[in-house]
């Protein structure tokens, strides 16, 4: 049983590290900024899950599970926010390769908005603003 658990832990650790590697490869090989954000957010969330599961099995400690749940939950909350912030900043500073996009339904909205309000003017409360994502409580 012990050997089996150790083997399982080892497998999980290797798979988890592999996910980080894939995220790294994706970051380098993907063609443009927005695609790269996919590589930056997705595999490492799973990689973290696998790594920590392997660690818990290796240490055989139930007390670690709440810590693990907390850490993974925080990762689930923060990874999309960081991807969103980078993507949004990249989009608005025109670092997005438009020729890779099939359609772009945001362009029109932003240019309309800048025309009516001016980009630097404070956004009136009732207007559709460039709101940041409401963070969870």
């Amino acid at each position, binding site marked *: 049983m012990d050997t089996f658990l150790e083997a399982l832990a080892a497998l999980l650790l290797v798979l988890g590290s592999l996910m980080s590697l894939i*995220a790294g490869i994706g970051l380098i*090989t993907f063609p443009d900024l927005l695609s790269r954000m996919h590589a930056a957010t997705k595999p490492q969330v799973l990689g973290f899950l696998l790594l920590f599961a392997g660690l818990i099995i290796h240490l055989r400690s139930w007390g670690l599970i709440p810590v693990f749940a907390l850490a993974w939950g925080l990762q689930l909350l923060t990874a*999309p926010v960081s991807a969103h912030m980078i993507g949004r900043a990249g989009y608005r500073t025109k670092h997005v390769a438009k020729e890779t996009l*099939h359609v772009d339904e945001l362009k029109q909205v932003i240019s309309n908005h800048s025309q009516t309000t001016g980009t630097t003017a404070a956004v009136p409360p*009732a*207007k559709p603003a460039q709101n940041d*994502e409401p963070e*969870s*409580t």
Partner: protein
Amino acid sequence: MKDKNLKHRDQRIDDALDTSGVRHRATFKQEWPLLLLLIFVWGALWQDFSAGNLLFGAIISIVIVNLFPLPPVVLPGRINLWYCLKLFAWFLGQVFVASGHVARVAIVRRKKARSAVIAVPLRTESDLVVMTVGHVLTLIPGSFVVDVDRSSSTLYLHYLDVNSDADVEKARANIHDIERRLIMAIGSPDEYEAIKNECGPDFSSRKPKK
């Protein structure tokens, strides 16, 4: 301020008023999940869930919440644990699929594959559901949020592998499917009824009609 007559947008109006200097404090009824979460964080960090430790955690949470107040989050007031569980299981499966998807795209390079930035107007008006949809779709295959328009609950997504208008429609249907699952789990009663009328009472993977 024509939003005033929209009953469901209370929270947005509240936040808007915040900018004019009026601070809205969350009531205990709105804040207890946050307190519970903070107590859990405290217990998890100490790896000790004994009553005394949790009590001390509760005191600290109350102090923190009062020292650093956040704008109140309006809870939908309805939660279906069974649908939550189903959603979580489905989500976990999708996280695996997402990693496989990125791995495939990263290793087997296809130069021709294009992507798109699409607008997806959601049916819900709850900030909480919009935020959760955004998080879920960022973590599952193919999509992430580039921008949000809060007043119309519209998400602007970047979607991988979009080569035709049919793909765009398919992507929208996928996002509406996520929204449907979330409303089933935590949407307000009104939205839950609306979704039930639209898709039937089952939780199958049936795509909602547009």
